[in-house]
């Protein structure tokens, strides 16, 4: 129970990754996969499209070539030079456009070749299987990739035509340099990559924004919970998305429950205190005799009273220190107690000056603040000659209550003892001696501290440090 509230993480909670990061990583992986597939497909489509254009070009040439060949009486091929493809590129060396007639035997072996001047006497490189394939299916066009005489890549079209009077067909050959087309595909791929990259970036940014926006109600809940802890808010109010409102409802129920339990405990403790004190008073007064029984009863009653006082106060305070969001203005209670003590010590004509920062708000219960300040003030009023000064200030991390008196003070070596439980330094002053020790213990429960020092106005200075409630 001595653990100060609000001291960092509660036991049992450990962070397990972040929802935002999980969503971001999942979104990034998923969009990368989708974009890669999309990019690959688009590039493939584009490439297929360019191939198609090259193939169409080859097909044109093949049709022209088919028109330019005939056979003579003995089945030998006869070429009509007038009908050969007109494009001047076929005449330029390694221009990128080539044609050829392949005369094959029955085993599909090339026996003779008539080829365009662009070949510059270099034989076209061809896989035998492709020629055989074309020869086996006359009339069908076979499109393959190959290498030009100048080592550049070309698109090749092959087609076999049957000539009258001979059994092996003539295989027509047309090829076209594909470097330019490949470069176009390359440029397209690069641009596509850039575009898809931008798209990916956009998606990631969108996801981040989405996560932020989507998680905003969670952050709101967190902020409001902080407010509840600090006492600025009773419950988590407001409207929440349907996914979160059951959670919020549960949290609110817990807060109310917690408050109820603490209040019930406090009521019970108060009732117990009330119920015990009158019988104890009666017992104590009844056991007046000098006999042994009276003496034992008297001693034991004293012990009971001391313990009841001590532990009831502690239990009450401990219960209260755990209450969510307790906050108590300091000024008003101190002024009330000062007013009362001035009246109580009318004979001595004491003046209690209270200077309290109105921003000083104690993070705790009113009853405990009264107990803390009341005991200090009562001590000061009891011992002072005529003056007691109370100063309450607020610092960044807490509030400070300073009680000065102009009484005899307390030697430094007695101060530690004065704070011990049940110690009383002067038996002539009435009181149970629990005053300062209960202040120490109460302050402890709240994570505060009590110091005894020399007062600038002559007597003792009690300096009490307490946690502040946020403004």
């Amino acid at each position, binding site marked *: 129970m001595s653990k100060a509230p609000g001291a960092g993480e509660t036991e049992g909670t450990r962070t397990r990754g972040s929802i935002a990061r999980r969503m971001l990583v999942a979104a990034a992986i998923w969009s990368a996969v989708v974009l890669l597939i999309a990019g690959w497909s688009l590039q493939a489509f584009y490439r297929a499209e360019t191939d198609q254009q090259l193939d169409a070009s080859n097909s044109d040439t093949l049709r022209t070539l088919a028109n330019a060949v005939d056979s003579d009486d003995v089945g030998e091929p006869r070429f009509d030079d007038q009908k050969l493809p007109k494009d001047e590129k076929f005449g330029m060396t390694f221009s990128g456009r080539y044609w050829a007639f392949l005369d094959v035997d029955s085993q599909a072996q090339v026996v003779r070749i008539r080829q365009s001047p662009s070949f510059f006497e270099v034989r076209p490189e061809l896989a035998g299987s492709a020629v055989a394939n074309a020869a086996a299916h006359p009339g069908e066009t076979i499109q393959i990739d190959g290498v030009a005489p100048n080592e550049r890549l070309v698109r090749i079209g092959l087609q076999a035509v049957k000539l009258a009077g001979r059994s092996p067909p003539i295989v027509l050959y047309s090829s076209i340099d594909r470097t330019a087309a490949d470069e176009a595909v390359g440029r397209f791929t690069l641009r596509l990559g850039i575009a898809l990259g931008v798209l990916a970036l956009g998606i990631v940014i969108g996801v981040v924004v989405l996560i932020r926006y989507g998680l905003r109600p969670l952050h709101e809940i967190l902020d409001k919970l902080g407010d509840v802890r600090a006492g600025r808010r009773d419950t988590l109010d407001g409207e929440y998305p349907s996914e979160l409102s059951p959670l919020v409802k549960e949290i609110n129920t817990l807060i109310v429950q917690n408050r109820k339990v603490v209040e019930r405990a406090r009521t019970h403790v108060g009732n117990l205190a009330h119920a015990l004190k009158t019988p104890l*008073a009666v017992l104590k007064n009844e056991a007046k005799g000098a006999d042994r029984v009276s003496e034992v009863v008297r001693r034991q009653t004293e012990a009971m009273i001391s313990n009841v006082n001590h532990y009831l106060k502690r239990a009450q305070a401990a219960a209260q220190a755990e209450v969510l969001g307790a906050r108590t203005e300091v000024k008003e*209670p101190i002024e*009330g107690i000062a007013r*009362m003590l001035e009246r109580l010590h009318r004979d001595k004509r004491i003046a209690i000056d209270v200077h309290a920062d109105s921003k000083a708000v104690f993070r705790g219960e009113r*009853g405990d603040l009264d107990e803390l300040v009341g005991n200090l003030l009562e001590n000061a009023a009891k011992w002072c000659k005529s003056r007691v000064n109370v100063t309450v200030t607020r610092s960044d991390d807490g509030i400070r209550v300073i009680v000065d008196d102009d009484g005899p003070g307390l030697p430094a070596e007695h101060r530690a003892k004065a704070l011990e439980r049940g110690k009383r330094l002067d038996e002539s002053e009435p009181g149970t001696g629990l005053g300062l020790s209960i202040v120490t213990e109460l302050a402890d429960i709240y994570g505060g501290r009590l110091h005894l020092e020399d007062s600038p106005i002559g007597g003792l200075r009690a300096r009490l440090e307490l946690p502040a409630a946020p403004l």
Partner: protein
Amino acid sequence: MRVLVVEDDPDLGRQLTEALTQAGYAVDLAPDGEEGHFLGDTEPYDAAVLDLGLPKLDGVRVLEKWRNAGKDMPVLILTARDRWSEKVAGFDAGADDYLTKPFVTEELLARLRALMRRAAGHASAALECGDLLVDTRAARASINGEPIKLTAHEYRVLSYLMHHQGRVVPRTELVEHIYDQDFDRDSNTIEVFVGRLRRKIGSNRILTERGLGYRLIDPKVEKIVE
């Protein structure tokens, strides 16, 4: 001197009544707030002991009503729950002192004596009138250090006159302050007590102002003119 005790616990009420009676006071006990308020409102008391947790009418309310009606006798409040806000409320309502239960009756008696003395404007527990001395702590009287044996009623008469020495105390006032409520009052008995007192302390110390009442004087300062 007459004291009102408002306490709902019968045992504590009895103890207080016994202790106060033993100390020489006339005592009335009220077991709840309503009766306590009524008695304090209608009877003249020199002091009241008021428990704050009372049935029917809360102690703080009782005190407020007394003060509003102009009752100014000193009031000592008893609190069981020693909550400061309750004490502050008690003092704001007009309490003069407080005791937290459980307490010893000696403590209560000492506080009450001090309150009544202060109300009458005396500084010390021992009241003096020339060589006549009344020690309110021990409820004893003496002349020149010679103790005088007094009955409870005689002591009350003397003590009241000592608290108000020099002033004419009407007979009815004296009656009201020396008898508790249940006593069968007969103003003639006052004359009997005063007569006996005169025999014990000397007839020149208590003056009879005809038609007005009694006055306690120091015979060395003021002579009785018959």
